[in-house]
């Protein structure tokens, strides 16, 4: 028998949960349908064989949207308690650099020779990132066919806000913003810093999850995006699972129904309007609106290509989503003694990116379907900060390994996976000697595994490359940037929509608000 909701949300990742909570808060009856047995999507945790929790894919918070926190009543502290982590730029030569609050020092406490240049550059990027953040809490600007009409002017609202902030920058900053916003990370970083672990780490942040090296134009934009909320990385106590649990609790308490193990196989469309979903077991759920948190291509297939224009389908098919990040999760029986890195620093965000050139070089093989032999790695040992991370003792290390192809030559055989693990371990070993000996269990997730687990195309974290040709008014694709997705009442609310990926929640919130506005307008008209 079919139930009836005001809206169903397909996909119970963070964006789906934020969308559901936003709708429920406005008094709408909402149901979230998640295919997997647990909520969370990319942020869902797992467990090692001994039961120790495992941060499966995502491991840190950067960019949770303040608007989301505000509206869902979490306050500035966020849904869970977090610990800010210092960034530790690992140096195979042992001259590690620690960055706290945008200021670098050498790990042994001596001043970093380029501290001032780095501070200036980082501060400027954060300032510019804040400008871009202005655009994150509303649908992307769109030039209307008729500039003169009121709706058209309203759509330019966020742009006007950005313009206002932009005016407040100094003249030199304005010029600099317009110069570097479309530039490449390689040049912008190396114009200010000499090449080394500090510069390399900034480059690595610019290209995390991307199918691009730091020389690619547009990587400064993605770096600013990452730094939009200051750039500090925070470790949620209890792991990303706790963040998901908090979001789920909030959605539930606002009245949303959350179902797991409910795979949606079709979004039903009647009279060019989405009217519900069908589940794998044949159950039909009627709804006034359907918000889909899957990748854009999958969302189109759920409704069926017959409900989209041919050009829209072509654009969605051509949306670039080639994941390059793999995940290595290690269970450790203890920590190696690393000279120069005490437990406090070892508990930081460890970046292995010895130079900008090496980040660029690490990218090259993936273009030809091969794994980088000297990968760029972001690693965290949450158990040094969060006692819940390893309740049975020992430690856990979670590493994002780049660059790894989604479809390597020869495919992801067991041997290829083992080799990826060994390459990543060997790379970590250059900066953390003795680490391998401590590993008691390891899980390797290739981009292809990430796709299988979450449905993200190509295993791409952001459901589609965050490059200039796929951002703002052309995200996910030209003509579909404002969350309305084909038939009336069908919305895209996942990372493929503006403003994009990371555990940010903004696409879910913005899409829900558009759906609410449409529903209100529809009710008014009726």
């Amino acid at each position, binding site marked *: 028998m079919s139930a009836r909701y005001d809206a169903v949300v397909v996909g119970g990742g963070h964006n789906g949960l934020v969308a559901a909570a936003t709708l429920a808060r406005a008094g709408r009856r909402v149901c979230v349908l998640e295919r997997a047995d647990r909520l969370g999507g990319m942020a869902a945790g797992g467990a090692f064989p001994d039961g120790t929790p495992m941060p499966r894919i995502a491991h840190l918070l950067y960019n949770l949207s303040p608007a989301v926190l505000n509206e869902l009543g979490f306050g500035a502290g966020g849904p869970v308690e977090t610990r800010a982590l210092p960034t530790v730029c690992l140096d195979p030569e042992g001259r590690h650099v620690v960055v706290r609050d945008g200021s670098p020092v050498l790990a042994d406490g001596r001043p970093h020779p380029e501290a001032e240049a780095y501070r200036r550059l980082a501060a400027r990027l954060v300032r510019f990132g804040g400008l871009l953040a202005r655009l994150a809490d509303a649908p992307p600007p769109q030039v209307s066919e008729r500039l003169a009409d009121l709706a058209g002017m309203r759509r330019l609202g966020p742009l006007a806000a950005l313009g206002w902030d932009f005016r407040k920058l100094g003249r030199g900053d304005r010029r600099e913003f317009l110069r570097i916003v479309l530039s490449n990370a390689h040049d912008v970083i190396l114009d200010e810093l000499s090449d080394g672990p500090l510069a390399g780490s900034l480059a690595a942040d610019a290209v995390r999850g991307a199918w691009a090296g730091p020389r690619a134009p547009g990587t400064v934009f993605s770096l600013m995006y990452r730094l939009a909320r200051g750039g500090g990385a925070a470790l949620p106590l209890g792991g990303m699972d706790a963040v998901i649990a908090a979001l789920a609790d909030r959605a539930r308490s606002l009245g949303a129904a959350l179902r797991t193990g409910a795979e949606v196989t079709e979004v039903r*469309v009647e*009279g060019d309007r989405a009217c519900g979903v069908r589940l794998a077991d044949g159950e039909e759920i009627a709804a006034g609106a359907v918000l889909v948190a899957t990748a854009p291509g999958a969302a189109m297939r759920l409704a069926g*290509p*017959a*409900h989209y*224009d*041919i*050009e*829209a389908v*072509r654009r969605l098919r051509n949306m670039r989503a080639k994941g390059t990040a793999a995940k290595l999760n290690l269970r450790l029986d203890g920590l190696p003694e690393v000279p120069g890195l005490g437990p406090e620093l070892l508990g930081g965000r460890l970046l292995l990116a010895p130079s900008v050139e090496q980040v660029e070089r690490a990218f090259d093989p993936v273009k030809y379907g091969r794994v980088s032999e000297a990968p760029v790695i972001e690693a965290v040992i949450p158990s040094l900060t969060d006692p819940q991370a390893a309740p049975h003792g020992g430690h856990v290390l979670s590493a994002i390994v780049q660059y790894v192809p989604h479809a390597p030559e020869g495919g992801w055989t067991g041997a290829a996976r083992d080799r990826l693990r060994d390459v990543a371990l060997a790379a970590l070993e250059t900066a953390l000697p003795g680490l391998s000996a401590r590993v008691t269990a390891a899980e390797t997730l290739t981009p292809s595994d990430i796709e299988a687990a979450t449905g993200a195309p190509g295993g791409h974290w952001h459901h589609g490359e965050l490059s200039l040709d796929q951002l703002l008014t052309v995200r996910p694709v030209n003509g579909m940037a404002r969350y309305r997705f084909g038939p009336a009442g069908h919305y895209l609310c996942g990372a493929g929509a503006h403003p994009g990926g990371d555990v940010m929640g903004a696409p879910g919130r913005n899409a829900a608000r558009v759906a609410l506005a449409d529903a209100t307008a529809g009710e008014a008209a009726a």
Partner: protein
Amino acid sequence: MNARDSFAGRAATPVPQGLIDGPFHQRLAALNHARAWYDWAGYAAPSVLDTVEFEYFALRNAASLFDISPMRKFRVAGPQAEAMLNRMVTRDVARLAPGRVAYVLWCDEEGMVIDDGTLFRFGPDDFRLCCQEPMFGWLEDAAWGFDCAVTDETDALAALALQGPTSHAILKAAGLDLGDLRPFAHREVAPGLAISRTGFTGDLGYEFWGAWDAALPLWDRLWEAGRAHGLRAVGYEAVNIARIEAGFLTAGVDFQPVHAAERLHRGRTPRELGLERLVDFGKGHFNGRRALLAAEKRGPRSRLLRLDVEGHKPAQGALIYHGRRREVGHVTSGTWSPTAKRNIALAEVRAPWGTTKSGDLWAEIYTCEEGVWERRMVRARPQRAAFYRPARARATPPADF
């Protein structure tokens, strides 16, 4: 040697330059006293074989043969062929029965006409689309996600138009009695040879669809049968007069197929071409539907009108004025109609003069008679129906002449 084989292989044989021969070329070349060829999709096609007037009157008074093989032909087959085509074209394909042909349009996402053509239905899951523009890539994109296959039959299928009042008699003489074949119906009369009661002249007529390699025997068979019925081979110029009389549009002349337009805003909606009757908003989504609904609200920007123009001088290329002063459009096709005995034209006229205020239109015609140029401003009156629409075109069974 077959024209297609000369560049089919990977060998370093030259890819032919310029115009190549169509399947009926041998016959046409022998008849082409005017030596007038034009480029139709890379094929040498006759514009005139000897004299336009006589070819035209053969078409309207007896019968004509015209090679239409350069048309693009695509087979669309598979369980979801109907759904795929229904999402592409503006008419409801579900209502097209097997054995029938429909005149269809398809639009881009902004509701601008990409091309028009004829859609043949052979069975529940089997269709052929015939049109002017290269469409294989578009059809493949349109077929993505549907269980159906698109095959380009352009160079595999020869096509020939037999048009004119005695065309049915010629069919009979050729041993093909299709007296019961109704307009917009088609039938396979022999393995690999299909006949449809369709055409581009508005008159009684048939089109033949057969294997490229079997084209010449088909020609000879009709030619032989036509001897006693005034059959004549014709070129495009004669056909063009007939199609303007019938009010049919030519892509690239009366409208700009939007995929072939380099300049922006050159596309036209079906309503702007006067073809809104071919758009079925009630059938569910089709390409450009949302944009067309919005366009319906805004109203058309222009309208393609049929104009009855004063005087005798063809209005080809004339500008259209409202109240003799305000320039409001231009003639896209204009000719003297030898059958209707009127000076006729198709013209694109901007709104509102092309839509609600279409009175007081004038055509500015320039003439050059033996070196003397003259400008004439003549009345142009919009007309709803085709300029020539004989009852014989629809009679079933058709008369012998």
